[in-house]
């Protein structure tokens, strides 16, 4: 699960990670009030107005309606309101949102932390994530803060510092010192970075996170180390023990159809193609998408009905796929192991009858436990549904349907 920058920073702050302070606002008026309060709290007289969406590239991204960038600087209190207004309610398009962009419902009014002082401010990169191959967490750091880290890894891999954490003992002091030294820090900034890394790792462990990315981490002109941005990704499977974090979910950031599918325990991902599919099992679902492509179509979705599919969940899946106007055909591919094909067949028949005027071809491929009973249910239903037993035949029928 992703959370917003302002939520992530609050989470980190709770663990003693120093952050660029800010206050979230829903309206231009709230933004101005937030700026005033921030001025009182931190003394800042410049303000950064930051769009809160679940996607990166906000600074370079543009609000479609106004042309404003997603992150802008207001050099006085008076500028905060208008600048927030140019972002709030707009559609922000960044390289991560796709062309349709994302609606901005909140802005974070943050303090200016790039003020001049004894030394030059400098940006760094820091992240914590699971190294799947090694089976442990890894801290990644780089002096190339503020840059796209994938590009850094590609072009100058020697600039990426990696420190693997032994699950038996957790992060050790020598490791955070090693990272801070490799980043070229010294004196007060070095000490601050060591503390920063420890607090960050504690937050990561305690919250069942799957990824933290702090880009940039800033060394201020007075040698503080701050998180200026924070991308926090939480392990969905760990949320049951973090009710407070689970509440941070913002469903307006998600596709409504995907949210609805979730209510029925269906795993659905919307795609751009023309052939819908409903499958049991994630691997077979991906394989079915691949079959659709090889048959000359494009998959319109990923949909796993899971191991406990019944008439109700199958009907829900059916309705969700049908909401997509691009869908020109639907392939249902069920290999019955735990889920019995006859139950799925009943679901298909019931849903078909309830929905009524379905005018796109439907291909149902049922194989495995109770496949014969299932075929009988489909055949005796009198519905205009093509049935198939072999995956190959199903593929051929999709091809025919699209022709």
């Amino acid at each position: 699960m992703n959370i917003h920058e302002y939520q992530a920073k609050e989470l980190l702050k709770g663990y003693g990670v120093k952050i660029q302070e800010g206050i979230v606002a829903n309206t231009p008026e709230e933004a101005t009030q937030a700026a005033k309060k921030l001025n009182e709290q931190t003394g800042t007289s410049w303000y950064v107005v930051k769009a809160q969406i679940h996607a990166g590239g906000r600074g370079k991204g543009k609000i479609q309606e106004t042309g404003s960038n997603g992150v802008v600087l207001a050099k006085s209190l008076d500028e905060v309101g208008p600048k927030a207004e140019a972002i709030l309610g707009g559609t922000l398009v960044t390289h991560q949102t796709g062309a349709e962009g994302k609606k901005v419902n909140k802005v974070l009014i943050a303090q200016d932390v790039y003020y001049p002082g004894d030394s030059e401010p400098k940006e760094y990169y820091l992240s914590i994530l699971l190294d799947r191959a090694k089976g442990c967490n890894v801290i990644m750091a780089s002096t190339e803060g503020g840059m796209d880290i994938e590009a850094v890894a590609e072009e100058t891999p020697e600039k990426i510092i990696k420190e693997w954490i032994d699950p038996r003992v957790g992060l050790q002091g020598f490791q955070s010192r090693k990272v801070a030294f490799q980043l070229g820090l010294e004196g007060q900034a070095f000490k601050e970075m060591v503390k920063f890394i420890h607090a960050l790792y504690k937050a990561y462990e305690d919250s069942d996170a799957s990824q933290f990315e702090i880009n940039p981490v800033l060394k201020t002109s007075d040698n503080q180390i701050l998180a200026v941005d924070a991308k926090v990704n939480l392990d969905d499977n760990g949320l049951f023990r973090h009710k407070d974090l689970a509440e941070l979910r913002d469903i307006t950031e998600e596709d409504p159809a995907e949210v609805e599918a979730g209510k029925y325990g269906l795993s659905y991902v919307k795609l751009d193609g023309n052939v819908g599919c409903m499958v049991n099992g994630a691997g077979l679902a991906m394989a079915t998408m691949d079959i659709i492509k090889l048959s000359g179509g494009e998959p319109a979705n990923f949909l796993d009905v899971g191991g406990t599919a019944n008439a109700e969940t199958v009907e829900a899946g059916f309705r969700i796929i049908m909401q997509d106007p691009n869908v020109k055909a639907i392939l249902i591919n069920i290999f019955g192991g735990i889920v019995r094909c006859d139950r799925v067949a009943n679901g298909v028949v019931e849903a078909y009858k309830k929905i009524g005027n379905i005018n796109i071809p439907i291909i149902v491929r049922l194989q495995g436990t109770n496949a014969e009973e299932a075929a009988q249910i489909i055949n005796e239903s009198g519905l205009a549904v093509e049935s198939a037993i072999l995956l190959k035949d199903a593929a051929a029928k999709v091809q025919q349907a699209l022709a």
Partner: protein
Amino acid sequence: MSVLVNKDSKVIVQGFTGSEGTFHAGQMIEYGTNVVGGVTPGKGGQSHLDRPVFNTVADAVKETGADVSIIFVPPAFAADAIMEAADAGIKVIIAITEGIPVKDMVVAKEYLKGKDVTLIGPNCPGVITPEEAKVGIMPGFVFKKGRVGLVSKSGTLTYEAADQLAKAGLGISTAIGIGGDPIIGTPTKNAVQLLMEDDETDAIVMIGEIGGNYEAQAAEYIKSTGNKKPVVGFIAGQTAPPGRRMGHAGAIIGGAEDTAEAKMRIMAECGIHVVKSPADIGETMAKVLKG
């Protein structure tokens, strides 16, 4: 010799008396698997499905001599169950449970290091050696006995492949569902290695999906054996978009190496017979074996 489980395996079920455990233990017994008992803390001394229930895995091992355990314990307690089984001296642990927090699995996997134990899963359909032992949730009738080994991250796609092999006149020595989570006990390479070294296996089907580098590791290993046995490979998710999780917790394209295309390329370079369509697995294997 088949691998991991056979007719001599003594199997216990952790989470025996729960609904999943009860249903699948029943199915396993019906298949002919030697289920010798089960574990549900607090229900020790009772009888379930005509088998004894124990409070701890240690008790079950002591009383029954069990060497294989299958886990149906809910996600919050499953990592603990895995470690309990390892501590009690179980040799093969098969964790079916889906939804275990990654943090718990990192700890559990670390705990198993250096112990004489193999963990299969979690989030997997289990392991079957046809006509000998089914230790999993797969429909047994789909898996015909034969000499092709099967390794897969996916449940139903494994059944699909087994069915295609049967229709192509082939059968299975052992099918290993390794699981679709980011952290699993036995990565693709290790499972392939078991089958590569098994006298009753002539060829291997290896089914992967997007995310991680397990398939690439396995491909390099296969090449390093001098392609001793033919391998047919398929990667699910050729049409999956980057950055989106496709059902399985581990099925997500992060970097370029996570894509189906990259994996299929490495596999082909390492001499694996890569099929683009999941409908071609069985027939391709039949062709490869004919030579």
